[in-house]
């Protein structure tokens, strides 16, 4: 076992890879080795992985149904106990089960925003940076306009127009979160654009689309990923804020922000109702921040000095 493990390690770390796949895997393994040395980043990664696992296996983990009320006469606002590890809420639902199912909504928000905002930001930023001139001016002014919208207010307007719901909240958040990525990608592109290796590929007759997608984007990607990861905490909080205001996920959906809003009324006497989802938001936000910091140490070539 240890024998095969050490030979696998050698295979990954060799300076003479024999195939494309080996070269790529080796590169990834090296990055992983650096990342692994950062304790806090590993904690962050652990929290994020836990979030994903909880979301996937919510059906198995949660002891109760998150939506159906229990016995309203006997099971309302019970304090944490063995039966209800996080207590119950005002409708006699198990808070632990709701927090567990809530991770799915949180994960959906995070994933969708990342999937929508990151490509838009990258595309706008690298295109503006690579071409410069008029393209740059027009694209970056558009970016400025989006950047000028206060996120929560735009989300409010959006939800007001399209009706409340988690999907509309996600779209609103995604629309307001790409401009910083575009700016970041543009700044990176400006430093990459005039390098010899870009000049070299231009001299091979490559089209601008090929240069941007194959040569510029991969170099901007790491800093944008770091930024997105660090922004995740803010995105989760915005989603929670919208839920809190009643504009995001609608009851009885177990969204963490909406749960805090509901528990607010009992905060003094029944602290666990609002606190438990609060802890969940805190933990996940912290996890993404730690992960983002760790990624920065590994991926950002400037930080390495």
């Amino acid at each position, binding site marked *: 076992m240890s024998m095969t493990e050490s030979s696998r390690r050698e295979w990954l770390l060799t*300076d003479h890879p024999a*195939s*494309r796949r080996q070269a790529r895997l080796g590169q990834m393994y090296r990055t992983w080795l650096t990342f692994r040395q950062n304790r806090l980043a590993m904690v962050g990664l652990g929290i994020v992985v836990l979030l994903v696992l909880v979301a996937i296996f919510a059906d198995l983990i949660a002891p109760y149904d998150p939506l159906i009320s229990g016995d309203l006469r006997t099971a309302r606002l019970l304090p944490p106990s063995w039966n209800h590890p996080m207590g119950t809420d005002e409708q006699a639902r198990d808070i632990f089960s709701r927090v567990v199912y809530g991770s799915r909504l949180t994960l959906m928000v995070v994933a969708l925003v990342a999937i929508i905002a990151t490509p838009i930001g990258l595309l706008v930023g690298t295109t503006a940076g690579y071409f410069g001139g008029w393209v740059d001016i027009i694209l970056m002014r558009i970016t400025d306009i989006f950047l000028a919208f206060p996120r929560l207010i735009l989300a409010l307007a959006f939800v007001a127009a399209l009706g409340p719901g988690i999907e509309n909240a996600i779209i609103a958040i995604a629309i307001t979160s790409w401009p910083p990525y575009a700016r970041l990608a543009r700044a990176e592109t400006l430093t990459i654009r005039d390098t*010899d290796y870009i000049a*070299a590929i231009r*001299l091979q*007759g490559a089209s601008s689309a090929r240069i941007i997608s194959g040569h510029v984007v*991969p170099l901007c990607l790491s800093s944008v990923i770091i930024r997105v990861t660090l922004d995740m905490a803010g995105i989760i909080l915005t989603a929670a804020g919208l839920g809190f205001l009643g504009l995001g996920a609608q009851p009885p959906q177990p969204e963490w922000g909406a749960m805090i809003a509901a528990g607010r009324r009992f905060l003094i006497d029944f602290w666990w109702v609002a606190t438990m989802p609060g802890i969940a938001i805190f933990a996940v936000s912290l996890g993404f921040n730690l992960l983002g910091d760790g990624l920065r140490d590994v991926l950002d070539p400037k930080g390495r000095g």
Partner: protein
Amino acid sequence: MALLNSCDLEVTFTKGSEHVQAVRGVSFEVAEGESYGIVGESGSGKSTVLRAICGLAPVTGGSIRVDGQQLVGARRPDFYRKVQMVFQDPYASLHPRHTVDRVLSEPLAIHGFADRETRVEQALEDVGLGQGFRFRYPHQLSGGQRQRVAIARALILEPRILLLDEPTSALDASIQAEVLNLLDRIRSERGLTYVLVSHDLSVVAHMCERLMVMQHGQAVEEMTRESLQARNAAQDYTRKLLTASLGYRAAQEEQAS
């Protein structure tokens, strides 16, 4: 007829309201199969001439002809199959996230070559790197190996003209000898035409049959290798360069006499 012809070439960079004339009317001809050197100190515009030929610097006056055709505006794809360039700093001219394999196969993909695998293998052999280097990243290579990859990349489209911008000035002396030998061998094997830019007179004397000395964006004088070796310079500036190249002690003595 000359394969490469530059006539009163001017390059002016404009930044805001500032204009910098990097090249001010430079004319030269390079015949097919010839190796032509451009020598000068920093800021002489020697590298800019190369960049103007391949479209990386704006031609603001005069003309450049390759194979009799005048180059106007953006270069067409078939231009890059005729003219390729090797850059000065091998640490900056290879994409940090691309393997050697990708660096070499990309130009083949762009120009629609079918037998990419064999061509990449052949290109690596040609520059003296074995197949073991094919899937390495630039950070796994030494400076000399990187420059060999850059040369392989420039050769893979089988150009007729190779523009060499200080190809060895970032390398150690022993590696420089290897790379110069490689370039020399490839030229004689393929009948390539070289335009080599350098600040080092001895490199140019070794590599080129004719050369031009540049200063402040202008041509000072054109010489043959023989007149350079005999130190028969017509201009003061060239003489100054020749004296400086002798090393400190000799330069001191020459100045004293």
